[in-house]
């Protein structure tokens, strides 16, 4: 009788937590032998090949190329001939004893989600995870809890979709599946997440009973922290601000949205801001440069970084040669960049070699801030919220759409005069987008 064995992603370095699948060297249906190379993965340290621990037929590749998976997550399922398990799993898996799948237990420290045994404190009371529920004597489990857990498990969805749902806090059992075989698709999860977000701020969660929570510093959070510290303590930051009447920008956005040429493309004030920065860079090239201790490299191209909040934290992918793009192409590029980042699919190359960055904090309803430079760059511009405010025009107070633009520069490269001229140029475009015709 054939058995399905799954291979959980191992920690191939010392203390690595995740890796990206770079390529698969086998496909579903292929025969594999022990130690045959099945895929290439890229970790924070290196690209390595993974040898297969089983002999049999590949029944499913559980992770797609380009996807980043956590250590312990199964990446491939192999149908192994014979009734004996291919390997003795040294750690008994009580919770999943009735499941057909078997995985070799990895070393201590490799979290494997619901597949690893639960070791909660006895006093911790009831648990919400299915694995823990099965491990606790049934008498202490409220029936509803078991129901919820089993419903969730009965939903048909591929592992990456389950992971996405988990990240976006979407309960799969509440999603209407539209997949061909009744499975929940990526779009279903995204739609559910959008619906949920509308109500996100309405209810305030109850104050936790614990006095504090300890969140491990790792992954993207750790990378953000070290990049910010590196930036803040190597480049002397100088920040300047300007209030500007953005009424004409808002009108321009409205007209572009209505135009047939821009049908189907997302047009936002961020797009005009991006164009304004590219225009102002041409007039003040040194804000678009890189400091090395020997020289300042001034770039005559703009790889425009756009800070993106993702479920896993902040990343700054950039649009390569943004200065060569038309307004339409730039709009498409911004939209794609944001979608890719939101899906967690941004490739490392897309975050490298940026030359200047925009951070759009206005979407959070914030006026302005003092952004920290993306390491390696000498300028970053923050777009604040655009709101109706009193504004003086011809000695009269009128209602205008006003915003504050903030910018930070590396003072080793950019002095106050250039910084101010650059920001004034950006502001003037926001005030009068017709300048872009220049």
């Amino acid at each position, binding site marked *: 009788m054939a058995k399905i064995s799954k*291979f*959980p*992603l*191992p*920690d*191939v*370095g*010392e203390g690595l937590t995740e890796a990206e699948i770079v390529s698969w060297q086998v496909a579903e249906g292929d025969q594999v032998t*022990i*130690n045959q190379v099945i895929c290439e993965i890229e970790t924070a*340290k*290196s*690209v*390595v*090949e*993974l*040898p297969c*621990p089983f002999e049999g037929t590949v029944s499913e590749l559980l992770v797609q190329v380009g996807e980043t998976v956590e250590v312990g997550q199964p990446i491939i399922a192999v149908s192994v001939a014979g009734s004996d398990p291919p*390997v*003795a*799993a*040294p*750690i*008994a898996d*009580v919770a999943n004893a009735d499941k057909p799948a078997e995985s*070799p237990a*990895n*070393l*201590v420290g*490799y979290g494997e989600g619901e597949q690893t*045994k*639960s*070791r*909660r*404190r*006895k*006093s911790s009371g009831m648990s919400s995870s299915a694995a823990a529920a099965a*491990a*606790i004597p049934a008498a202490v489990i409220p029936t509803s809890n078991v129901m919820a857990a089993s419903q969730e498990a009965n939903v048909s969805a591929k592992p990456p979709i389950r992971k996405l749902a988990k990240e976006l806090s979407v309960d799969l059992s509440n999603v209407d599946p539209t997949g061909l075989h009744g499975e929940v698709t990526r779009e279903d999860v995204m739609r559910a997440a959008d619906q949920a977000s509308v109500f996100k701020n309405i209810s305030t969660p109850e104050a936790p009973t614990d006095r504090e929570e300890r969140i491990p510093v790792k992954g993207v959070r750790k990378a953000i922290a070290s990049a910010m510290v590196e930036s803040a303590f190597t480049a002397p930051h100088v920040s300047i601000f300007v209030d500007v009447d953005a009424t004409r920008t808002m009108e321009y956005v409205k007209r572009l949205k209505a135009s047939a040429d821009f049908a189907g493309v997302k047009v936002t004030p961020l797009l005009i801001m991006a164009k304004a920065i590219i225009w102002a860079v041409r007039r003040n090239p040194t804000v678009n440069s890189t400091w090395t201790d020997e020289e300042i490299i001034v770039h005559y191209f703009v790889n425009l970084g756009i800070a993106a909040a993702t479920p896993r934290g902040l990343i700054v992918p950039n649009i390569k040669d943004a200065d060569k793009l038309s307004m339409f192409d730039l709009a498409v590029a911004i939209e794609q960049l944001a979608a890719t980042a939101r899906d967690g699919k941004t490739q490392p190359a897309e975050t490298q070699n940026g030359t200047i960055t925009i951070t759009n904090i206005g979407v959070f309803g914030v006026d302005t801030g003092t952004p920290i430079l993306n390491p390696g760059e000498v300028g970053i511009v923050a777009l604040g919220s655009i709101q109706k405010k009193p504004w003086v025009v011809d000695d009269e107070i009128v209602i205008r759409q006003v915003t504050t633009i903030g910018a930070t520069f590396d003072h080793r490269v950019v002095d106050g005069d250039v910084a101010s001229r650059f920001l004034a140029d950006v502001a003037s475009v926001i005030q009068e987008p017709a300048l872009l015709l220049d």
Partner: protein
Amino acid sequence: MLQLLDQEGQYEVPSKYSQYGEIIDQLGEADYKKFYRDMARIRRFDEEATALQRQGQLGLWVPAIGQEGAQIGSGYAVGNKDHIFPSYREHGVAITHGVELMSILKMMRGVNHGGWDPNETRFHHYAIVLASQALHAAGYAMGVKFDGLVGTGDPENDLAVITYIGDGATAEGDVSEALLFAAVNESPLMFFVQNNQWAISSNVETTTKVPLFTRGLGFGVPGIRIDGNDVLASYAATKLHMDEIRTGKGPFLIEALTYRIGAHTTSDDPSKYRQSEEVEFWKAKDPIIRFEKFLRRQGIGDDFFEQVTQDGEDLAKEIRESTFALPDPPMENIFENVYTDPHPLVDAQRQWLQDYESSLEDNE
């Protein structure tokens, strides 16, 4: 440089090295086969261990591929009373002194801290803090001298100590101190330097300004450079100089020129710091291929090599199955060897951990 076998497996003893040739003259076909079998065996073991690490079954693996000639040759030249202080890559030396291969994997899986009894094998524990083993060896060798276990002329009594260090370790203060202590005490200590060209990602040119076999001269420790991919040169040089050391001649240093074909450990990616041309250059000097050419010149046929390959596959299977079957160590092991005698603080900690563990669900 002492080389007895060239890349084509041609055996020739240069006249100035005739004393090394005399040592090889005492070997027979059985010895040659043993050298080959163990080099091939340890390489197959190494490949399987690397795969096991990539499959999440070992915390770390330290590959020794490419260095089998230096290790097997010198390992067999170490006498059965001598003591060995290895670095952490000396799997080849380990098997020449009865260390079980599984005990190395147990340590790399983290189910124990050492895995073998150094009193029994005279092969001391792996030194993870590199270069520290040179000091342990220097101290041990001083003790050997104090105990009168060297230079009496009685082969039943006299012994020597050998430490294995790498090119990178020679740049650490520990090795300089060990050389000095060994020299001024005229200790029976051999420094066997496997110059595998790379200290993780630092090339040997960044760790020394002079050839490493001259490293000991200023301290008063003479040395010789050998072709570390020539198992016969490695055997002959180690045997001759260990014999001298046992007679009370004082410390000596051998620099074995070799190359680490694989990564420093499974945690690094050598393609990031060295060129593939360099690796190809050294692969052509492979110690096992070279020795196979030599054996075939001696008339040893396919049957032998096929058997060795089959034995390697059997070993790999056995290693794989045994690794998966390794039980988790009992928690009490953590406390067992902290002090020789019972200690109240250790007792209290053991009790605390036991209480904590029993407060968890799903105990075994």
